[in-house]
Every structure is written in structure tokens, then in C-alpha cells.
């Protein structure tokens, strides 16, 4: 029996779409069951959303005031306890949430973790990127151990929902939770723009944009296109935009239909974040910039002249 436990990612009572992407990865393994675990202080709304995802067999909820924030040290022992109830696989998204908690679960279970799963050839054979995505390694995990893995969300579309109505069950884990880690605050930029990780269109700016003030033209173009805004590390380091907009090896790995790289040179660490994008457009004043080697559509010129023209032409 192959039984997969997916750890739901949620914030402010809303399920993150990364969870439905994990379901698609889980379905690739062709398991007998796919259960979703929701840890929260108030899991009902999130559990209801998860129950609708096609392919989900059952949703398990653990309600505890200590679960009001996703602290890895608090979540991990509870996940490990549920996993011990006959699960063969534990999957979490390879987002900062999943990256934080999944290795703790693996360590508690005494097993290895497969990070950033991009393909499951069978229940224990996976492909994952290494060296900033410059090589893909196939790894085999032992069949007699629980497999803990994080799912590279850009590799899997979100499983659809609507026709499913999986049962929701309350579970008790009965493990002692640590108090040595305390949530203080989450500083979140308020934005009405689409979410970078799930947006169909993304407009990204790099160091070439030149300043925080100049970044307004990137935001403007994005708004005209209904796109999310991203950035290179150089742009984030220089303080043009907040860190949660960084795309790349150490930022967000995304797969929009349209990605526009503006004033971005195309370092490998950036490219690894956009490899799965549908169409990549590059605008750069340097015709030799490496971004053009992978761009589907390239335009050489000064972004400060081209972006207003582009907005006009849209």
C-alpha cells in the first residue's frame, strides 16, 4: 500500500496553491491514498478547501493554539507522529514553508529527504535539480523507508478542484510540543497584484532598472499586463524591491506562461528560477547579455525608452 501524506501550506486561513501542486506530484506516484494534513489553530476553512482538490482521499486536521503559526519545531513532531500511522510518503512543497519543516520530519523519522522533486519515475525514484539546475540527478530512495520529499512546485500544475469532496477527519497526535521557538511577526508587503509563485504573467526587473523609484515603471507595466512583479537578486540586494520578489536559485522558482526579464543579465542563478516559464522575453541594452541565449523573444535597447513604448503599443 502506497499512502501519501501531504502537508498543507496555508496562511491567514487560506490554502496555498502549492498544496494542489503537491497533489499532482503525488498522483504521479499512483498511490492508494493521498491524504492532506492541516495543522492550524483553526483548520476548518483550509481543510474544506483541501477536501475539494481532485485526487485527495482524506483531509486530517490537528487543531492546536500552538499551530497558529507554521513553526517548524512545533509542526515537525506532529507531522512525524501522523506519518508513523502507515504512511509511505510525506510530501511538502519546496517553498520556504516546506523547506523549513520537511527536513525536520525526515530527521525525526531517521530517513533521507529528496528535495525539489521535479519528476517521480516510480514511488522511490525521483529526478531533482542540483548545481543551480545545471544538472538533473536521478535518485533512488530505499523502498523500506518512509520517503520524505519536497516538491518543486514549478514542475507540477495545481491539481484541479470542484468535483471532489474528501472526508475531513480530526486527529489527535499526542506529542509534546516545544516552547523554545516563538513567532514574533510577519511583515508582509500589501499588494493587490497577483502572487508571484502562481501568476500566469510575471514582469521582472534587475539592476538595470537602477533605483527603487525607477522600479515604478516595472510595476506599471506589470499592472497593464495583469502580471506579478519579480526581481533579480541584484535588484533586491540594492533595495529596489523587497526580498520576497527574488526569482532564482535562492529565491522563487516559477513557471508563468509569460516571463519578462527587464534589465536582467541572465546569471545562471537567476535562470534556474525561470527554466519552466512558457515564453521568456528579454529587454536589455547589451545585445551580448546571456539572457538572450535562452530568451524566446529578445529586444535590445534602453529599457527607459522601450517600456513606455511597449505600454503604448499594448
Amino acid at each position, binding site marked *: 500500500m502506497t499512502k501519501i501524506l501531504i502537508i498543507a501550506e496555508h*496562511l491567514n486561513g487560506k490554502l496555498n496553491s502549492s498544496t494542489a501542486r503537491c497533489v499532482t506530484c503525488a498522483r504521479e506516484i499512483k498511490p492508494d491514498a493521498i491524504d492532506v494534513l492541516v495543522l492550524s489553530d483553526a483548520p476548518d476553512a483550509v481543510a474544506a478547501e483541501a477536501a475539494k482538490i481532485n485526487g485527495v482521499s482524506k483531509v486530517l486536521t490537528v487543531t492546536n493554539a500552538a499551530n497558529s503559526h507554521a513553526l*517548524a*519545531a512545533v509542526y*515537525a513532531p506532529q507531522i512525524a507522529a501522523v506519518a508513523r500511522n502507515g504512511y509511505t510518503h510525506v510530501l511538502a512543497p519546496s*517553498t*520556504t*514553508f516546506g*523547506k*523549513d*519543516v*520537511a*527536513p*525536520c520530519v*525526515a*530527521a525525526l523519522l*531517521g*530517513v*533521507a*529527504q529528496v*528535495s*525539489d522533486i521535479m519528476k517521480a519515475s516510480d514511488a522511490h*525514484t525521483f529526478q531533482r535539480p*542540483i*548545481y*543551480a539546475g*545545471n*544538472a538533473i540527478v*536521478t535518485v533512488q*530512495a530505499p523502498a523500506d*523507508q518512509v520517503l520524505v520529499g519536497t516538491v518543486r512546485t514549478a514542475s507540477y500544475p495545481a491539481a484541479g478542484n470542484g468535483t471532489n469532496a474528501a472526508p475531513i477527519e480530526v486527529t489527535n497526535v499526542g506529542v509534546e510540543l*516545544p516552547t523554545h*521557538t*516563538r*513567532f*514574533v*511577526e*510577519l*511583515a508582509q*508587503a500589501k499588494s493587490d497584484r497577483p502572487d508571484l509563485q502562481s501568476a500566469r504573467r510575471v514582469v521582472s526587473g534587475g539592476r538595470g532598472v537602477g533605483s527603487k523609484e525607477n522600479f515604478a515603471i516595472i510595476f506599471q507595466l506589470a499592472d497593464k499586463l495583469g502580471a506579478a512583479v519579480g526581481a533579480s537578486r541584484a535588484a533586491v*540586494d540594492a533595495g529596489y524591491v*523587497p*526580498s*520576497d520578489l527574488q526569482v532564482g*536559485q*535562492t529565491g522563487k522558482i516559477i513557471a508563468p506562461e*509569460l516571463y519578462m526579464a527587464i534589465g536582467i543579465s541572465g546569471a545562471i542563478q537567476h535562470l534556474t528560477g525561470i*527554466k519552466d516559464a512558457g515564453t521568456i*522575453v528579454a529587454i536589455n541594452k547589451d545585445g551580448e547579455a546571456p539572457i*538572450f*541565449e*535562452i*530568451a*524566446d*523573444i*529578445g*529586444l*535590445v535597447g534602453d529599457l527607459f525608452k522601450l517600456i513606455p513604448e*511597449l505600454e503604448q*503599443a*499594448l
Partner: protein
Amino acid sequence: MKILVGYKRVVDFNVRIQVKPDGSGVVTDGVKLSANPFDDIALEEALRLREKGITTEVVVATIGPADCQAHLRNGLAMGANRAIHVVTSDAIQPLTAARTLLKLIEKEQPQIVILGKQAIDDDCNQTGQMLAALWNRPQATFASRVEVTGNAARVTREVDAGLETIEVDLPAVITTDLRLNEPRFIKLPDIMKAKSKPLETIEFASLGIASGDHLKATSYAPPPKRSRGVMVKDAAELVAALKTKGLL
């Protein structure tokens, strides 16, 4: 107070890694090796905490083959007080690394352990979290700001939703993100000084660690290639091209 820093040697971030034609691995012969960039940041943070008087001793540790000594000397030249080299010629996996670091913690009793959030070779992003779980102590991963006050640390973390701040009791594990600090450059006199700093070697086998290297790499392949597309000459042509592709 003592800080232990994990300091891994990896293929330099500027190297464009090539997969061997037979798919048995990646080419590492003659390739430039450097400290994992996140580990340089980890060491820098430890040194800054020492400069603030919060810690008195910074110990760098690496797990790797015999020729890692020069790499550890760089860590000493950057400013670490001592180095520990756990010698093994095997490329160990994160669970084994975490178990090894736990042994060093038992021996050294540090109050803070700082590691990079990921090593840029296997890109696993696991060791710090595994270590914290095995040690049964807090973790503050992806740190972009660390403030130590008394017996706790307040750490700001770069998360997908923004910047999260948590407070952890010490001892704790912290893993670094890129914007935590900018590591200092090593100065020539420091390289000379580093030669006389203590560097302890421990045979990996002598630690009696149950191997956690459960994953078997069966083959390596280059990533699917994206090829160069078309060049357009102005904004109007760009819009036309996007329309042709059905993207507008």
C-alpha cells in the same frame, strides 16, 4: 559563549558545471572549489557576533576529504579561532552531515550553530533543519537578521510571504540567507596568522555515526535546454510577436 560554524567546500558559484557524457556524474576534476557562499555568510555573522562581544570563540568545522585543510585555513584567515576537520573521502548526504555536526555539538557545547541555508552543489537545504530536529533545539532558517540578547536570539527570516521574525531560546541552529551580511575579504597578514591557529582533525569513522546516506544517485543528465529565440527590433514588433503566440 561559543559559536560553531559549518563551512563546506563546494564547486565555485561561477563554474558552469558539466554533466559527464556517460551520465555517471558531473565534471569536478580541475574545477575551482570555494567555500559555499552561504557558509561564508555564516562565518561572517559569527565573527560579527564576536566583535560585538556576544561570543568569545568561533569554531569552523568541515566534513570532507583530506585536502579540505586549505579551505579550513581560509576560514581561520577570515577570523575563526579554531577549526575542526572531520575527514572522509565519501560525499556524505545531509542526514549524515547533521549526525556528524551533532557529535561536534556534544563535544564543543556551542550556544549557537550557524550554517548556510543550502550548499550550492547539491542544493538540498536540509542539514540545519535536520540538525535542529536531532538536537531537539530551535531552528531559525533563511536568516536575514540576527539579534542575540541574553539567552535568546531574535531572527528575521526571508520567507515567501515576506519577512518573518521569530524568537528562539539558545542554544539554537541558525541558517543564513544571502542578505544577512556581506562577508569580509581575507587580508594577506591574516593568511600568515591562520597557519598557526589550531586545526583539529577527526577521522569520520572514529565518530561511530550511523550513515544516513540512504539515497542512491543512479544517473545525471543535463537540464532540458532552452534555445535562443527570435530578436525583435522594437516595442511594436514585440507586441506583435506576443500576439502571434497568443500571449496577449
